[in-house]
């Protein structure tokens, strides 16, 4: 069963990598649209420069997101063909709708935006970015509606040896989706807020291009502050939903082995997955029940009881997700979120008192917090996807029934290594470019018309 492990590694690597770029696209497209709207409404050239500077960074990021996104659509069929057969009737529809409603809009209007500065009216040009922002977030809705089904199947019936859709409205009103979608979109805004605030802080520290980055830092911090608090709020609601509807995931992210009422919240736990217990833990009594039920009482089911219940329902097997992975990815995500919330509140307070620009400590902290949203986004997905193991579709299909049966491990090794190496090289190239742009600052990019005068290669003449 080496194929399954390799396929999972490939999916994990390509998906986490893809999702390094997606959140920034989701959030920064909105901020760019706001910046350009400010330009159109005030006519102030400063906002145009600002839009162009952040736009340049946006495009590097966007290209990486698009390029790595193609793999995502293809690898369901390539590596998980049995999943595709079993789920295609339900899963294919949102994917096709994503392409039809969102990808076409996004790619077409971004093309207009990039090349249309001189060819479109100011208002039309601005509208293009609003359409890009709308459609990229709409694409998140479709793919998350597909993912939500995997976490919490709704509106289906098992017939003809597969899951068939019987209620499309149920698919897009899935309560799981409406927890996950706002959380993800807000995560994008957090990412964009931190990105803009951190890079602006760099310029304020260096005392360069102060005019542009004084405005930018305000936009970045405001976005960071508002969306971090909202992302925590939606995250809380989502966890409450998990507590009631996906108890196994909840128990694994809390490393709660035995059912407890009221249940404590473990701050730190050393999990022993072999003997199915925690060797030691530090917890707050009753706090988990409080978080889930808004009161200091209420039973939270433990892993061992849930395992027994799952065996009774689905037959023998291990139904526990990787516990310490879930436990720690959840805590790292929450800590990163808290850090960003505190830092943004503190920075805004300083900004309000007109002291931010002189406080090099806070500016430096802002700059060095750039990885935080990326860490939170990645750990969030590791929790979500790891937490549904051993299922690929919770309760309906297990991972080991989902892999393509015609592949050899060599096939998957080749693609796994190929994608990983290529992604590594592209990461270096894109970091090189972003760093270069940031060091250069918001200067108008002039194509070198002198012509490098290097002769093209010739096949004829």
């Amino acid at each position, binding site marked *: 069963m080496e194929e399954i492990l390799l396929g999972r590694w490939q999916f994990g690597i390509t998906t986490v990598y893809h999702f390094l770029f997606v959140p920034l696209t989701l959030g920064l497209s909105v901020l760019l649209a706001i910046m350009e709207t400010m330009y159109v409404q005030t006519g102030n050239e400063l906002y145009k420069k600002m839009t162009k500077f952040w736009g340049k960074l946006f495009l590097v990021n966007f290209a990486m997101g698009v390029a790595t996104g193609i793999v995502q659509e293809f690898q369901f069929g390539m590596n998980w*063909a049995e999943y595709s057969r079993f789920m295609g009737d339900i899963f294919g529809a949102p994917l096709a709708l994503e392409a039809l409603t969102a990808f076409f809009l996004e790619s077409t209007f971004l093309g207009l935006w990039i*090349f249309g500065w001189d060819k479109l009216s100011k208002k039309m040009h601005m509208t293009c970015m609003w359409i890009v922002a709308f459609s990229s977030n709409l694409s998140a809705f479709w793919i998350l509606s597909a993912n939500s089904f995997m976490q919490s199947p709704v509106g289906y019936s098992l017939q003809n040896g597969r899951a068939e859709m019987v209620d499309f409205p149920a698919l897009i009103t899935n309560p799981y989706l409406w927890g996950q979608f706002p959380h993800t979109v807000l995560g994008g805004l957090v990412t964009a807020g931190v990105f803009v605030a951190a890079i602006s802080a760099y310029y304020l520290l260096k005392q360069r291009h102060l005019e542009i980055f004084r405005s930018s830092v305000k936009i970045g911090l405001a976005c960071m502050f508002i969306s971090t608090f909202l992302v925590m709020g939606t995250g809380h609601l989502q966890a409450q939903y998990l507590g009631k509807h996906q108890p196994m995931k909840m128990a694994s992210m809390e490393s709660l082995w035995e059912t407890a009422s009221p249940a404590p919240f473990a701050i730190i736990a050393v999990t022993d997955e072999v003997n199915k217990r925690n060797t030691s833990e530090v917890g707050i009594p009753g706090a988990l029940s409080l978080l889930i039920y808004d009161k200091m009482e209420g039973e939270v089911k433990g892993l061992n009881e849930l395992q027994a219940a799952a065996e009774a329902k689905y037959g023998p097997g291990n139904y526990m997700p990787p516990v310490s992975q879930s436990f720690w990815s959840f805590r790292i995500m929450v800590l990163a979120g808290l850090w960003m919330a505190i830092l943004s509140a503190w920075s805004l307070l300083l900004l309000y008192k007109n002291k931010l620009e002189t406080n090099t400590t806070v500016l430096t902290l802002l700059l060095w917090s750039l990885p935080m949203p990326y860490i939170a986004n990645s750990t969030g997905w590791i929790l979500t996807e790891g937490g549904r193991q051993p299922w690929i579709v919770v309760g309906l299909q297990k991972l080991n029934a989902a892999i393509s049966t015609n592949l050899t491990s060599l096939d998957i090794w080749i693609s796994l290594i190929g994608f990983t190496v*290529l992604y590594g090289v592209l990461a270096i190239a894109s970091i090189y470019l972003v760093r270069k742009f940031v060091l250069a600052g918001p200067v108008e990019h002039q194509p070198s018309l002198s012509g490098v005068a290097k002769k093209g290669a010739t096949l004829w003449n």
Partner: protein
Amino acid sequence: MELTMIWFVLVGVLFTGFFFLEGFDYGVGMLLPFLGKNDVERRIIINSIGPVWDGNEVWMITAGGALFAAFPHVYATMFSGFYLALFIMLMALIVRAVAFEFRSKDESSLWRSTWDWMIFIGSAVPALLWGVAVTNLIQGVPINAKMQYAGTFFDLLSPYTLVGGVAFLLVFLFHGALFLTLKVQGDLIERARGVATKIGLVTAIAFLAMVGLTYTSTDLFNSTLATVALLSAVVVFVLSYILTWARKFGWAFAMSGLAIVFTTTAFFSGLFPRLMVSSLNPAWNLTIYNASSSAYTLNIMTYAALLLVPIVLVYQGYTYWVFRKRVSEKHLEY
């Protein structure tokens, strides 16, 4: 019309749109390092497709999504069966997408020429592989009773499918050169035309070889519609070549596009009602009857597609209208 039939047609339409649109921008990508003698020319060539290539590529993404939604067994069998070929294509498409964005963002000539070659590879490889894929679909691949691909990567390569790959690549190259004659200025127009006239003959030979091998290796000619479409493709291609000589570039481009439309139509109508032919046993073919989604899903997707595809055509048409002028050196602001 039955829903499965509608979706067969829609998948065909999406692939036709993809080959027509992405066909020329694969062609332009392949020509880039050869036609662009200096950096300005290369930038002009890239800008000729700059605003539209990504939208064109979405036709492929949508065709893939439509296969998944409407014919999940085809999506599963084809994508897992053509595993290594698709892996190579994905690698090419990734570097291509990134290269368009990255190549002008650094002044170094090594940086730029590296990404220009990536655009070349990223255009040539998918162009070739799509030809190999389409000819494999109709020629038949080893599919067993469980709808599983039972061959290896090398089973996909036969004289017929390789000729098919080369023919697709060359048709796209020709189509791209004609697109350039409409989008560039001055000396470059002549050079693009020069390529088209030289490459056109080779393309015609490869295309005729593909048609001949289609006759010997497949049952496409059993379908009247497919026969008429494929022969019409040959005729309009020759017409396109003559029009290129006569410098009627607009018409020549329209005819090379029409040749692509006819070719795609021919392959799809030759396949009908199959989507993948099994070389092991005709009973194991994947058809619109045994590989489709449920009527409920197809119904919903039909409404969505019939509503949305025309809207997409309108706003993509708008983009081409906005960028209808030839790309000039003076406005290389990118």
